[in-house]
């Protein structure tokens, strides 16, 4: 996965998490995931189609998700509250939306699909053209994981291949 695709997501996650949680965010581990994606807790998934295709998953363990949602709601939420899942979805939506603005400025065009809660324990295995990258952001409320599996869409792949000749 090219850095030009990844960096906007890192910048957006840093900016949105810092602003919403009103505390500094630091980027922790960055790992490549070769095995099938395994959910850690409350996870929201967003699909992109167009010049860049693939999916982004935001994953927070249960305790972190409760702390984040409670902080943003201004009240302690019970573990079962649907607002916790909603909050993770909206965080994902805002981070991906902001990243896409940057990518759009670089000339990429695509469609962002509404976030959905990722309920299965595992996801699809990475493949050579959609390798997954997992980034961890440490916040005062806990770790937020961003799992990116993106590739150039067909049109872009064609141009990229032509440019490399």
């Amino acid at each position, binding site marked *: 996965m090219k850095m030009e695709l990844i960096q906007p997501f890192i910048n957006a996650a840093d900016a949105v998490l810092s602003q*919403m949680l009103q505390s500094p965010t630091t980027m922790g581990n960055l790992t490549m995931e070769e095995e099938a994606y395994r959910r850690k807790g409350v996870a929201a998934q967003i699909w992109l189609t167009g010049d860049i295709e693939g999916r982004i998953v935001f994953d927070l363990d249960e305790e972190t998700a409760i702390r984040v949602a409670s902080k943003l709601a201004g009240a302690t939420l019970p573990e079962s509250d649907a607002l916790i899942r909603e909050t993770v979805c909206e965080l994902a*939506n805002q981070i991906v939306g902001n990243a896409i603005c940057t990518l759009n400025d670089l000339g990429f*065009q695509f469609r962002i699909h509404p976030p959905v809660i990722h309920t299965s324990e595992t996801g699809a295995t990475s493949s050579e053209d959609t390798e997954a990258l997992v980034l961890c952001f440490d916040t005062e409320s806990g770790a937020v994981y961003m799992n990116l599996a993106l590739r150039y869409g067909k049109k872009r792949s064609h141009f990229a291949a032509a440019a490399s000749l």
Partner: protein
Amino acid sequence: MEQFSPVKRKDGQPVRYLVVDDSVFARKNLARIIETFGGKLIGEAGDGKTAITEYDRLKPDIVLMDITMPQMEGIEAAEKIVQQHPEARIVMVSSVGYQENIVAALQRGARHFVQKPVKPEVLYEVIKYVLGDDAAVASAAGAGD
């Protein structure tokens, strides 16, 4: 959350808002911000289709509308509302704030665009701008009540 000098309608009544977003969290967040402006949330919708029926029913002073939503997206809903109600004041509130989307929204009838995550001070200025002469900013002590 910071409190702002209340923005009131010319008749002294609170500005009435319809909030449209498929995220309950986002709607609650906007409702809290509206409260700090002295506004009144009169309705909510989770998709563009419901937004149209709710606008017809409630005739709000301001609509805060997300873009990416199921069933019908915000820009299409804004266009349909403005076709029926040219006076509608719709502010798009979305994380997908790139040029193409902003231009499309404005061309199809939205009055302004605010990027998520929403900064209350930015939305406050936008609301005052969009309401123009139809609103007055009261003093924090409650002038205009």
